[in-house]
Structure formats: C-alpha cells, structure tokens
C-alpha cells in the first residue's frame, strides 16, 4: 500500500443484513489506493459491488449495512469517523458525481444557487460574491459559455451534457482532493460522453485530483484509466495498469469480459466470447473464487481460499493458477471463445422494406403563451432494405431512429411519403398480415414483457392471436422456439420478475420469432444489458438469423455492436440520413463529418 495515496482502502467488506438472519456479502476484502493525479477505474458488471464500494468511501451506505476494513483519506481513518466529520469531508475533500444529471440536480433551484450552496456551507469565511466568482470561473473551466447568465438558469433549461458539466463544476467548488464519479457518462450520448471524459481528464491535471471512476463500460476505461480494478461478485479479481490490462489480461474473468466486447479487431458476425451461467448469489457463506462456476479453468482447488498473486508493484490478480499456467492455456482459450462461424446467407435481391420520401412531423401542443410548433422528426428518408440483410441504424438520442422503427413496424403513419413491406404499401396491409412479416425487439427487457403474464403465455400470445395450430401444436412451437433461444423449458410457468435481464431479452426475442416473421426490428436490443449478457444476445441473434433466414434492422447508439452485426450501416442525424454504406467501408472511410465525429468519440473500442 502506497503511503502517499489520497485514498487507501484496505480489506473493505460490506455486509447487508437481509430478512430472517440472512446476509448479503456485497463487498469482500477489497483493497486499492488512488494517488493525486491518478485515475482509478473500478469496472465490473451490474451487481458486482462497485457502487457499494463508492458509497462506503463516502460514508453513505444504507442504514444497517455492516462495514469492516480500513478506509484512509490522507492517512486519516475515515471508516470510523463521526457522522459530522464525514459530512465535513464529503463536501470538502471528497466530491461525487452521479450517473444521471437529470436527477442529481434539484429542479427547484437555479444552478447558481446549487453551485454556491455547498461552498458557503462548508467555508463560512467565503463571501457570497467570492463564491459566485468561483462558480463562474469553474463553469467556464468546465466548458460552459456565458457562465454568468447560466447561473440564473434552472436544470431543465440545460441539455444533458451541460447538466453533467454543471455537476462536475459543482463537485469542484470546494477544491476537493478526491473525485468519485459513479457512471458519469452512462446516461449520455457517445459524442457528449467523449467530451465529458476529456473534460474530467483535463480537470484532473489542472486540479491535481485523485479520480475514482466507476463504470461498467470498458471503452470508458480504455479512454481514461491509469489503473484498473476489475470487480466480480464483490471482490477485486484483478488490478493492473490500464494498458497492461487490455493487452494481457490475467484473471480468467477479465479475459472472458474482454472477449465479450466486439472490438476493432473482431471479425464481423463472428461469435463473441461469452460467459456461461450467471453471477452467483452473494447470500450466505462464501468461500474460494466466486468465478469458478463460470470459469473454463476451474479446478477443485478454486473452492478453497485463493491467494492474491502480485506481478510487479501495480499488478495483482486473485487466481489459483500462476501466470505460467494461465499463459500455457491462453492459446487454447482463444480458440474456445473466438471460433469464426461466419457463413454468408444466400444473396437475395428482394426488397423487404422500402421507404420513399418519408417525413414525420409532430405537432407539439401549444401552450397559452406559445403557438403550435411543428417538430420535424424525420425528413426525406429514402431507404430500401433487402431481404436477408442486416441493416444497422446509428445515431444519437433524438435523431429520429426510434420514430423510424415505429414507422417500419406500422405503429405510426408518416406525415408524408410511402412505406412498403414486402412490396405492398404498409397501410393497406391487414394487421395480422403485417404482424407475420415484421416483429420488434425492444431495448428494455423490463418494460417489454407484461409482468402479469407467464413466460409461456407471453411467447404463446402471437400464436393465439393469429389462431395458429391446436393447443398441442402451439405448446410444441413454444417449446421449440424457447429451445432455439436458449430458454429452459422450466421457465414456461415463470413470471418476468423471476428472470434476469438477459433471460427476459431472450423471451422477447422468442416471442417475436414464434410466428416465423421475415424481418426483426431490434431497437437497442442490448443497451440495457451487461457486456457478458450483451455478447450472449448478439450471438443468439446471429445464430437465429442463420436458422430462420431473418432480416434484421438493428438500431443502436453503440458503434461497436453495429459494426459487429451489420453489413450495411445508415448514420442518422437530426431526422436525416447523413451516410449510408457497407459496414466496413463506413468504419475505414467515413464520409460525413458527423460519422467521423462519432467514430472519434468512441475511441478504439
């Protein structure tokens, strides 16, 4: 443990008591340190305990949580500090930034008020005038123009990116030494995300901050981290300098996680690495390596306490195998995860969906003081999607991609222009005919399944609506499609609440496929899923495409996913198609400046 660290955490464990005497061991034996001017990324999938670590550091754990271990801020033990001392430290030495700038600013106060509030509270000697001056200076440092006027504005008057800049400025008002950022860019668009990350790095240099950034997104890690700690099931399984971690991951979990994410060197439409099974329950006594249930290296020794192996001064990993043993297996593991199963579908020239001059104009309700305002969501969209292809649509929020998908589904009628499905105008199609050709899969598997219906009923519903088959035939079809989508038959009578996010998305896909449609519209199908689950779903979509000869329209903000899946890519901006071309070509020779901006923002991943 380095002595000059701003924050040093040693052997931190957090246990959350549950009903009936059970306990959830959310964090176990976590140690790390952050120095001035250093960025530590705590990376892991949802539920791995990374946010609990952050909350422990700030002393903001839920009441009843039991914490043990040492947390030192400039050598002062803050694990046992009084509530008053922690409150003082939180404002002055430790500052925090949260994920959602929509909710972390109070809508009832002007941003000026919120900026100076903390400073005036913590430093009574500072005058209001001085505080305002510092706020203006910081807003300008954070890239906000006309800062003086902005002080009088309210959060709703600012865009998401600006709001996050304001929260960053707010965090820096008291000149803290440690900045804790919990998923600070997850709610933002990619180009904004890149700007915010750049800003954080610049501020870190300017203020000599120790930055602890918590994220699930490996591309964020790649962009900002000096040091990375990978968490799995409440433990840090590997700590390494960022470059080394991406180049030579040690722990089997890190290796698997990295292989799940489609990167620049991944062969498009190849199978991504995946993690079988799911995260173990953290309730009750835990021993040994928690990753062993999903690890291809697992041996009986994994159930015993696992030693922490050091490799140089800044590299640690926790595994029963030595580096030599892991490296010997590395080649084998590669083959395991990255088998190229690319197979071309027969070229078909038939057009599945055709849009001609499609325009969508929303009329916003005028208020007492404002007249009706037309909002152009789509403008002059010409698009022909051939049968059997995978079309990727990329764009940031508000670019009209979801409106476009609703129009293709026949859920919305465009203001002008024509849409035809399999050569027939979509408006003339009967409801049921349309449904047999085209089906959707949505982003949020929590919102796309009716919580009151069993999985069986959800998948069976389309067959019932269309009156396909007898009840035995329907049951057989449901079982077959569940099997194809990797869902166990025992889930037939389960309800959505009992399923994980990945399983739910499989149910949504099964329900869309049960009628054997020709076209599937996937609107951000993996955006709310963890990396390892995302790779499972992407693999499944590719498998199903081969099996059922499907045409996909894949809408995403994630360029890596689009690059991996699509053979043709359309880039949208402000309701227009700004670029349209073959998948690889767009990435190697982006034509439109906006495409270039998108690619640059995403970095190498």
């Amino acid at each position, binding site marked *: 443990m380095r002595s000059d660290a701003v924050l040093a955490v040693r052997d931190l464990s957090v246990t959350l008591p549950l009903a*009936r005497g059970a306990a959830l061991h959310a964090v176990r034996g976590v140690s790390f340190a952050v120095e001035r001017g250093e960025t530590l990324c705590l990376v892991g999938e949802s539920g791995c305990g990374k946010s609990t670590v952050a909350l422990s550091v700030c002393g903001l754990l839920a009441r009843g949580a039991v914490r043990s271990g040492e947390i030192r801020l400039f050598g002062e033990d803050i694990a046992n500090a009084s509530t008053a001392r922690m409150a003082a430290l939180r404002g002055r030495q430790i500052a925090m930034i949260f994920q959602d700038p929509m909710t972390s600013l109070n809508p009832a106060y002007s941003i000026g008020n919120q900026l100076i509030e903390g400073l005036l509270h913590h430093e009574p000697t500072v005058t209001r005038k001085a505080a305002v001056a510092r706020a203006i200076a910081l807003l300008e440092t954070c890239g906000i123009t006309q800062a003086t006027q902005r002080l009088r504005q309210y959060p709703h008057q600012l865009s998401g990116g600006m709001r996050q800049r304001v929260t960053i400025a707010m965090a820096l008002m008291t000149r803290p030494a440690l900045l804790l950022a919990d998923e600070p860019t997850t709610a933002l668009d990619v180009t904004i995300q890149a700007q915010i990350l750049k800003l954080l790095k610049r501020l870190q240099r300017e203020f000599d901050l120790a930055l602890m950034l918590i994220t699930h997104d490996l591309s964020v890690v790649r962009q900002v981290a000096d040091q990375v700690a990978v968490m799995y099931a409440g433990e840090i399984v590997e700590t390494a300098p960022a470059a080394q971690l991406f180049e030579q991951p040690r722990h089997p979990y890190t290796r698997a996680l990295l292989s799940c994410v489609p990167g620049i060197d991944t062969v498009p439409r190849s199978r991504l690495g995946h993690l079988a099974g799911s995260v173990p329950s953290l309730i009750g006594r835990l021993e040994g390596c928690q990753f062993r249930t999903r690890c291809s290296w697992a041996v009986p020794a994994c159930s015993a306490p696992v030693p922490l192996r050091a490799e140089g001064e800044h590299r640690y990993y926790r595994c029963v195998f030595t580096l030599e043993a892991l490296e010997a297996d590395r080649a084998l593991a590669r083959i395991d995860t990255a088998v190229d199963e690319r197979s071309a579908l027969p070229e078909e020239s038939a057009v599945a969906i055709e849009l001609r001059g499609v325009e969508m104009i929303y009329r916003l309700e005028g208020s007492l003081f404002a007249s009706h305002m037309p909002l152009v969501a789509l403008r002059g969209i010409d698009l022909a999607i051939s049968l059997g292809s995978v079309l990727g649509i990329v764009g940031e929020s508000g670019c009209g991609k979801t409106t476009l998908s*609703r129009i293709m*589904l*026949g*859920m919305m009628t465009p203001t002008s222009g024509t849409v035809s499905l399999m050569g027939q105008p979509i408006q003339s199609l009967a*409801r*049921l005919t*349309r*449904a*047999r050709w*085209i*089906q*959707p899969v*949505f*982003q*949020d598997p929590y*919102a*796309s*399944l*009716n*919580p*009151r*219906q069993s999985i069986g009923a959800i998948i069976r*519903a*389309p067959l019932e*609506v*269309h009156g396909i088959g007898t009840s035995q035939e329907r049951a057989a079809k449901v079982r077959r499609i569940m099997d194809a989508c990797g869902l166990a038959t025992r889930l037939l009578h389960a309800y959505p609440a009992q399923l994980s996010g990945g399983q739910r998305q499989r149910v*949504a896909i099964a*329900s*869309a496929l049960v*009628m054997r449609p020709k076209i599937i519209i996937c609107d951000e199908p993996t955006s709310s899923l963890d990396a390892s689950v995302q790779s499972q779903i992407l693999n499944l979509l590719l498998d199903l495409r081969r099996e059922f000869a499907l045409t996909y329209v894949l809408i995403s903000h994630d360029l890596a996913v689009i690059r991996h899946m699509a053979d043709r890519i359309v880039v949208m901006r402000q309701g227009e198609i700004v670029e349209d071309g073959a998948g690889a070509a767009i990435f190697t020779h982006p034509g439109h400046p906006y495409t270039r901006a998108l690619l640059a923002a995403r970095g190498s991943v």
Partner: protein
Amino acid sequence: MSARAIGQRWLAPSRLGLAVGASILLAGIVIAIGADRIAPHDPYAQGLIRRLRPPVWDARGSVVYLLGTDAFGRDYLSRLIYGTRIALIVGFGAASVAAVIGTALGVVAGYIGGWTDAMVRFVINARLAMPAILLALAILQIAGGGLTIVVLVLALTHWDRFAVVTRTVTIQVSRQDYITRARAIGCSTPRIILRELLPNVLGQLLVIFTYEVAQAIMAATVLSFLGIGIQAPTPSWGLMMAEGRNWMRTNPWLTTLAGLTLMVLILAINLVGDGLRDLLVPEREA
C-alpha cells in the same frame, strides 16, 4: 415457518393494521351473512311493553336484550346485526358498480386518447362538479328509496376516483413496450385492453376500492339519517341513529352504539386499504 418468524412478519406496523382491519371486516362479513342465526331476536318485532330498555351494563338492563331496546321495543343488538348486512351490501355493491363504471371509462379514455379521452374527462369533471349528497338526495326523492336504488345512486356518485386513477395508470402502462409489442403482434384493441392493460391496472384499484366501500357506507348512513334512501323499518344504522336522536338526552346509547359500530367498520376497512397499499407497493416499507 416458526411462530417467531410469523410474529415478526405480521407484527410490523402496517401488517398489524392489515391483520386487525381484516379480522374486523371478516367478522363483519360473517355477522352479515349469518345474521338470521346470530341475531337473538327478530329485528322487526315490536313490543311497546319493553320499549327503551337500557343495555345490560345499566342497572335496569337485562341479559335478554343485551344492548337494550329502541322506542318501538325492538331488540337493539339484533337491529345492529341486521344493519351490518345492509351496510356491507350497500358498501360493496355501490363500490363494485362504481368500479365497473369508472374502470371502463378510465381504461378506454387512457388507451384510446384523443377525442374519447376529452369526452371522458368532461364527464368526470361534470360529475366532480355535482355535489354528491345533493344529487343523491334529488334522485332518491324522485325514484323513491329501497336498497337497489340506494346502491345504484351511490355507485353513480362514486365512480369518479376509479376513472381518474385508471386513466392515469392506463396512460403510464400504455407507454410500456409490452403494449407496443402486443400491437405489433397484431392484437385487437379489446384484447390489449382486457389482457395486457387491465391486469396491470387492477392492483392499483384495490386500494381505491376499499376506500370507496367505506365512503359508500358513510354516504348511505348519511342518507338514511336524513330519512331518504333506505326506509324504515329496515334496520339501517343511519335510520337507527336518526330514530335515537329524539331520545338523545335520556337514552344516548340509541345513537352512540350505532355510530360506534359504523366507526369501527369504517376504520377496519381503511386499515385493510392501507395494509393492501403497503403490500402492493412494497418499496414504501423500510
């Protein structure tokens, strides 16, 4: 599950309220159903010779008429017991009819929107602008009393809350992707409303339903007290209180006992409602 675990589970404040409320309500329902067997006397049998006997705890009271007799010499306890039946029929009857009217209007307005929604909103506003008790008074004056009419009148004056809540919840649920998915599958509007929307809306209505049952019982009592609605000699609590009013000075139990019974029942129903809300919206609990 051990006795202690069961104790811990049910002794939390909200659960305790639910348990007490549900027990009282259940007892009320049993009494209402079994009134013929439980009541010690015929609630209609008059006897001037035994009029205005005080309850058993009074020096002049007797065990035969546990809660005494009213001005016509009818057994007070038996009338209270039969009154429970009337109260619960009116409460649950009116709330059920109101729920059907309100939910139907709310779900259609919320899902279809546009002009349909505007119309329903207008009807709701019109209903809210009318004073419920006065409206009920007017209708009952014209249509006459009787249990069925009272139930219908109270239903017609109590459906608005169902409509407002159903409409709001429906609008929220309609935005969920599973409704869009149902449309994409090709489901008809009635199927979407019945199979996808209603099951997700009903949970929220259960709490309002209990509240409206209490409200309807209260309103029915007020109407009876005013002498309209349920007609003498039917043993309704409101009528009993109205009849006892004349003897307030000398025989106060004639009004207070019926009033207390009413209070206990309303309290029990509201406790059930509160408890159900905590069960259905568990994140409110610590």
